[in-house]
């Protein structure tokens, strides 16, 4: 599962499998093109669906920036945040949902599918998804990298 111990976000195989499964089912059930979860700093956690059609890293950074910037708007209106955001395009659109953990779920879908259907399908799995993320916060915050597992940096080899 995800683990935010020691200031890092750790994704384990079993944890991401459960999340991928939930997102994959969402894509199948709703007819969406893709569903992504991104961490509030802009890092992508999971993407399911036709993800080869997008630059998912850039998409995550931009969606997070866009979503987070609405918090400033919300505060001007006396709201703590906006939990849903919708961007409508000519052929495809995107609906974004704040998770309880403040991570973001984004669903990209063709306009042949109504936004109402996407919203309904997401609401159906939102509790499950939140529970999966919440399980991470409740899990023992072990150090994400034990010394024996830590990737010793060899940055000189990278350039």
């Amino acid at each position: 599962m995800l683990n935010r111990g020691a200031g890092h976000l750790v994704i384990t195989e079993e944890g991401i499998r459960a999340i991928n499964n939930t997102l994959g089912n969402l894509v199948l059930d709703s007819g969406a093109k893709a569903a992504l979860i991104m961490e509030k700093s802009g890092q992508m956690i999971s993407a399911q669906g036709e993800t080869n059609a997008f630059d998912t890293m850039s998409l995550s950074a931009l969606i997070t920036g866009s979503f987070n910037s609405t918090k400033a708007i919300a505060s001007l209106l006396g709201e703590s945040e906006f939990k849903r955001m919708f961007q409508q395009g000519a052929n495809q659109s995107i609906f974004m949902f704040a998770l309880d953990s403040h991570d973001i779920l984004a669903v990209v879908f063709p306009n042949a599918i109504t936004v109402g259907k996407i919203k309904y399908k997401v609401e159906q799995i939102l509790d499950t998804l939140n529970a999966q993320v919440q399980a991470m916060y409740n899990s023992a915050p072990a150090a994400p990298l034990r010394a024996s597992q830590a990737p010793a940096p060899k940055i000189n080899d990278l350039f």
Partner: protein
Amino acid sequence: MALINYASREINCKIVYYGTGLGGKTTNLEYIFKQLAPGIRGEMISLATETERTLFFDFLPLDLGSVQGFKTKFSLYTVPGQVEYNASRKLILNGVDGIVFVADSQKEKWEENIESLRNMEENLAEYGLTLDSVPYVLQYNKRDLPNVNTYEELEGVLNPRNVPSFEAVAVEGSGVFATLKAVSKAVLNRLS
């Protein structure tokens, strides 16, 4: 916060270029983008005004190869340097793993550099972070211009923690990769 994915064997880190307006943050990213092969870097995204001032942020993803079986991916961001865009700067610092503070070496930018560094510390504090807890390096840019402070003067005021610092002419690429290498190394060291 770094994202360590044991399923896909990836480490994702976020590096933010911070500093005064027109100091050369975007120029750093543009040079990196131009010099690296497309297989190593993704597309650079700039959310800029019509006059090419950074409005929200620039973004450049880099894939810097494997380290002990983990693919290392870095997301480089710049902040808008203009004073009035502080809300954006604060947002972009969310989840930061490493910082490059780009100082403008010109004498007339002396006060702005100090103010920008102070502003950065204030914004980091909003996330419970300090310059002691986040790896960062300094870059003294525009060293080719005639009216600049000396390296020692800049060090004396901007680098009390004695972190790695680099002289640069970002528009020509001088010092750009040395800076990136230093901050990447500092971030990965923090993970060990």
